[in-house]
């Protein structure tokens, strides 16, 4: 049965109208993945020596054990944003003689073979081996220790599964957990209560009592069962497949009428964002990411690297633009034929999308103003970045959107629908962020930060002034690929 499921997925992939695009994305991700694997392996072999050199008061093993909990949290955080979980379109299978258990086990077991599970192993297996070589571990202890690592990695894997399933739709529910993590980190930082000491000591004991190594494994098994139970509940048409019948709430959007001919579209987009879970998450994510700057601006290590301010400016003011913009016009894919046949000039349609993104950049820029507390120059850097976003990046996002032909189903949810919540989602962000940072950095190296801000902002303003020409160019791109898009959007997601 598992083989049959794999065949189905393979067909879904090769027969999708966006296959070319997906292959390109996969190749690019493959390179990044290879780089990460190589880095992890190097780190794994070097870790012992690094630790014996820099951490004098502890043995490398104790040092690693102490930091393990931090590793786990970081990995969980990273996976939440990057790992795409296996999905399966179960609607056609529901009335077929396929056991529910088989489908659920398939989805869960497939996640074990994820690339992300390799990363940790590549660091810790070489580390354990070097420890044996240097006499810190007996081979048996090393094996027991690796069992712990494996158990923890699996626990991370299945926790992520659980978190994504529970929170991918309502990301705002994740905030309390984030707060706990932040508080624990704070207590650790100020030396009030060190959780790493306790977890570290706990893991240290394994050398004496190898049986303890089974605890993380049990944890992983427990998480697997928890996942299994929650997934089983979702395996009904009315639970996860069909969106619940919600009472329609009227939105008073009359104030948007001042946008004239663009008003109907902007109102429509606001309803789109507000009434559908997935686009709604992009809103929450944008607000949550306003706090991202705290990580950098509170850390003195970044003081000597002013280019970070541009990165943060682009990222924080542009996150909605990135997450919403890259799926234009796929958000409208379920009714794209209507948009193409109705009395809608394509240019107006695109201008309204741009207007929404301008609005988001403005609002998010205002949201970053409190960072002035860390220095007024931050505000200038953010302003330059925001103007660049508005002038250059918004047209770029719109243009790349013309290549979209993958349907986004707002209404029917695939069993565990994580479309657009994986590493691929951030790929497009790389050029969007890298180019302005490079420009700024080059000018900054030659002159000073103020000039660099002016140059970056100037480029943005040029973009804004050329807006009309750019929009004409983008409209032609959409016109050319209109038929491909209509055809692609017709294909139901598998």
């Amino acid at each position, binding site marked *: 049965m598992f083989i049959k499921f794999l065949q189905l997925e393979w067909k879904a992939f090769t027969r999708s109208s966006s296959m070319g695009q997906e292959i390109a994305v996969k190749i690019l991700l493959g390179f990044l993945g290879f780089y990460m694997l190589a880095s992890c392996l190097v780190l794994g072999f070097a870790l012992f020596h690094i630790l014996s050199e820099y951490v004098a008061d502890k043995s490398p093993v104790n040092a690693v054990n102490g930091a393990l909990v931090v590793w786990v949290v970081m990995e969980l955080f990273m996976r939440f944003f990057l790992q795409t979980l296996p999905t399966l379109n179960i609607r056609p299978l529901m009335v077929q003689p396929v056991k529910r258990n088989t489908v659920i086990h398939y989805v869960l077991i497939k996640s074990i073979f994820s690339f992300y599970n390799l990363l940790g192993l590549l660091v810790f297996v070489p580390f354990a081996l070097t420890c044996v070589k240097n006499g810190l571990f007996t081979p048996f202890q090393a094996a027991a220790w690796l069992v712990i690592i494996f158990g923890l990695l699996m626990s991370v894997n299945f926790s992520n599964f659980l978190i994504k399933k529970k929170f991918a739709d309502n990301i705002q529910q994740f905030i309390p957990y984030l707060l706990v993590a932040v508080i624990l980190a704070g207590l650790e930082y100020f030396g009030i209560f060190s959780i790493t000491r306790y977890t570290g000591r706990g893991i240290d004991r394994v050398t004496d009592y190898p049986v303890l190594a089974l605890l993380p494994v049990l944890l992983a098994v427990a998480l697997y069962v928890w996942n299994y139970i929650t997934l089983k509940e979702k395996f009904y048409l009315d639970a996860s497949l069909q969106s619940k019948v919600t009472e329609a709430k009227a939105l008073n959007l009359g104030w948007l009428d001042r946008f004239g001919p663009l008003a109907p579209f902007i109102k429509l987009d606001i*309803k789109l964002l507000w009434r559908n879970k997935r686009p709604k998450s992009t809103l929450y994510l944008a607000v949550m990411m306003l706090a991202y700057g705290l990580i950098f601006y509170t850390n003195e290590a970044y003081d000597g690297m002013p280019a970070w301010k541009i990165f943060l400016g682009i990222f924080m003011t542009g996150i909605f633009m990135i997450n919403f913009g890259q799926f234009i016009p796929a958000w409208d894919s379920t009714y794209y034929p209507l948009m193409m*046949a109705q009395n809608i000039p394509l240019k107006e349609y695109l201008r309204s999308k741009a207007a929404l993104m301008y609005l988001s950049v403005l609002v998010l820029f205002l949201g970053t103003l409190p960072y002035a507390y860390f220095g007024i120059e931050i505000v200038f850097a953010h302003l330059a970045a925001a103007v660049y976003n508005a002038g250059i990046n918004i047209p770029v996002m719109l243009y790349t959107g013309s290549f979209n032909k993958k349907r986004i189903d707002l*209404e029917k949810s695939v069993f565990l629908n994580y479309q657009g919540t994986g590493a691929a989602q951030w790929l497009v962000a790389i050029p969007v962020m890298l180019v302005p940072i490079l420009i700024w950095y080059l000018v900054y190296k030659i002159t000073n930060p103020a000039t660099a801000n002016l140059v970056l902002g100037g480029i943005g303003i040029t973009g804004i002034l050329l807006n009309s020409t750019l929009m004409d160019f983008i409209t032609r791109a959409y016109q050319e690929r209109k038929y491909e898009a209509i055809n692609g959007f017709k294909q139901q997601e598998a």
Partner: protein
Amino acid sequence: MIEAINLSKKYGGTTVLNIPNLIIPKGESFGLVGNNGAGKTTFFSLLLDLIQPTTGQIINQGIQVHASEDWKPFTSAFIDESFLIGYLTPEEYFYFIGDLRGQNKADVDALLDKHREFFNDEILNGKKYLRDLSKGNQKKVGIIATLIGNPEVIILDEPFANLDPTTQIRLKRIIKELADNPDVTILVSSHDLLHTVEVSNRIVALHKGEIVKDIATSEETLKELEAFFAV
């Protein structure tokens, strides 16, 4: 007037539509019948510039649909549920279409009021999103929305499918009323020969992409069509 010249559509090596010449005069009530795969939806999609013709062109009131967007203001269509926006309530959807077609809220309300009977109290003020309506009720919304803004060309693909018998009768009445207006050209496709014969004054039968019958509706039309399709 709608004119198809040398129109053909091929997918791979298969020709799914081939119409050397077809003229639909203004004010006609045009019925398109045929089996599955006869090319009915393909023809309508070409007319709406949703797919590209392999050869030839369609001219809608003097505008080549593939070259200009100027046919959009006077043309409206309901092909399938991809013409509905699931996360809107029926009213919001009507007002949205109204906005696009330059109609204010009062104009739209007047039209909805006229068709109150057609909705059968199940659609308006229901506090439901379109995605939560039944297929039949969704269809009713889509059909009435094509009437907003007094379009001169109305295209309905399989409007009778999924509708209950009462609504089918009401829909026929609406279509006939539109057909009486000499400025409105209405194009309806259906598998159902009887319905089409009742509402159209000209019927074209497609078979594997070719026009095989082109007849003005009369007493004998139904028999003639039934004889043709009874294989």
